[in-house]
């Protein structure tokens, strides 16, 4: 990665919710709009930036994504696309939820988009009862109400229990 940007080697320290510290290069951190805004304002890069909502495991994943995208900005888009799909492959729902929350908090649009798409693809063909469990939604319908909503949308339930 030959870049002419000044302070290229400048590094930041990010601290996860469980206290682990991560040293990242500035250009990698700039993938996050949140960090970019912090650096643009008075925040000194010498400080440790706490990320109280993101655990170490998720933060490591997020930074892996940021590094790939920061370093590959000039390379082929196709390569990045295959990285993205590989990146989320086999990831369980819990990890995906943490990732999408982290991407939302750190304002990393690309990661937020692919993680949301991955969740959408996963739930698309699932019965609504299962989706309810995945999202931990309490069923507030009485059985009669649920039956009424279902009857209204009967056509959408073809092939579903």
């Amino acid at each position, binding site marked *: 990665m030959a870049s002419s940007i000044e302070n290229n080697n400048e590094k930041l320290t990010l601290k996860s919710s469980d206290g682990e510290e991560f040293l990242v290069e500035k250009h990698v951190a700039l993938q996050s709009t949140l960090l970019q805004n912090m650096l643009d304002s008075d925040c000194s890069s010498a400080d440790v930036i706490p990320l109280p909502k993101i655990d170490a495991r998720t933060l490591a994943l997020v930074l892996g994504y940021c590094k790939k995208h920061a370093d590959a900005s000039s390379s082929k888009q196709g390569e990045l696309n295959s990285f993205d799909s590989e990146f989320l492959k086999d990831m369980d729902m819990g990890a995906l939820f943490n990732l999408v*929350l982290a991407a939302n908090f750190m304002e990393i649009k690309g990661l937020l988009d692919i993680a949301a798409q991955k969740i959408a693809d996963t739930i698309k063909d699932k019965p*609504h009862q299962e989706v309810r469990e995945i*999202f931990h939604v309490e*069923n507030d319908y009485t059985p009669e109400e649920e039956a009424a909503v279902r009857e209204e949308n009967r056509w959408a339930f073809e092939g579903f229990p």
Partner: protein
Amino acid sequence: MEGSISSDYGRDDPDFGIICFCGEPAPLTKSTTQSNPGRRFFGCANFKTRKACGFFCWYEPSIGEARSDLGPMRVQTKTKALRAVERCESSKKRKTTTITSDSGTIMDRSVWRNLPPEIIGRVLSLLPVKCLCRFKCVSPSWDSLISSPHFAKTHLHITNNTPNKPQKTLLISSSRALSRDLYSVDFAAANPTAEKLDFALPVRDRINWVRGWGSCNGLVLVSDEGLAEECEEGILVRDGGVNYNLFLFNPFTTESKELPDSHVLDLCSVDDIHFIVNGVGYDSSTDDYKVVMLHSREVFYYNGISNSTRVAVYSLKTDAWRKFQDLRYNPMEHIHGVCFNERLHWLCQRTNGSKVVVAFDLSDEIFREVHLPASFDNYLPASFNNYYGCWHHFRVVLASCLCLVVSRYEGSEIDVWMMMKYGVRESWTKFTIANHGMPLGDVLYLAAEEEFVLRMIEDIGVRIQPVREKLVVYNPKNKTLRDMVVCGIPTKYTVGGNYIETLVSPNHGGRIWRHYEASLGESSKSY
């Protein structure tokens, strides 16, 4: 929480099911502090006594009022509104357990604990309509979110930015006399099937015709035209003129709305020759859907001599028609207005017989001419300008650009004109589909640079009553035709235009919608 507090509100309503740390039901109280005037909260029942446990959390109403955690969600129809109120009452009875979050705001368990609503909304907006209608059963909150106009807009925006978004084509069966069945076909599917739509037009008249007039953002415009005659024992006793009803209809969510009478046909009798064309489009400047009706009483076939055309424009927001100044053009062919660049386009004829595309701008509501290719008037020599002698068939269609399709029966050829750069006359380019003397009918579905579907008449000998029709697919790249079989397609049908899959409702944003919002406001006040 310091400040004067009025405890009259909900004081005696322990059924809310909120228990304070003393283990007693926490009453709902209205705050009168300067920072939160009128805001309601649950507090310890023993407030201001020595026993007080200090329990406090804000009450976040879930029904009828904007709920901060769900954004602009509203209940969509009256039945839903009623259901929501019932639900609220039944949830009181059930004494749902509640948890208090760090910030001190109340969260009942129907709120997503893991993902914030904006992310749930983001995920859901990526799903197809059928899937979303199914997920309305997940919970009342999901139902409200998916049914809200705001969500429909977000979903539409994402759909419109998807490359190769799936399109369906509306077919109206004319196999049986007085048939009103609507079908939809996805011609791009591997094994296209005609599916009967769950949409029943109200039956009013003995004789009627159903036509489709294109679509915009998934809202399909359908007309039902009937003779309002009264018969006694088969004998006509009263000629009530012509009934002309228009419907906006979302084939995916099956929501529909009958438009009010435009009164364009008020002074017409059954014996008049009517020529009505319609079109539907979206005006982003006012966030409104508009239906445009052009009505000419004498048709262009008689050597171009005709009355001018009456114009009426319907706005979904105001739910009313407005009459416009008469137009000095006459529409040709019963083809819907094609919406492109927020303009509705029809192929029209000037009073001198020359042809022109007329574009109605949905924003400034002005008709403008779009120039046709210079050679276009050669299609119809003046002496042949008679319907029965003319074997030309024109229509404006849309791929990624404005297209004109001219079927030339006698040459068994179809000319496809594409306006590569909108508004630039020189950018019209043409290609021709030929079929070795076999007649090609009309183009049903057109996708730029991809295959498209044509309806072909198999027997030219009996043109007045075509013996058989079949569908063929034309591939412009290698200029080949192949047969297409569509399962379940009616033997005879007309084409009502293409539409995309959206959640847009004809009842969003209009008067009905506001009416329900108002009634919701009242119900939440009394509650």
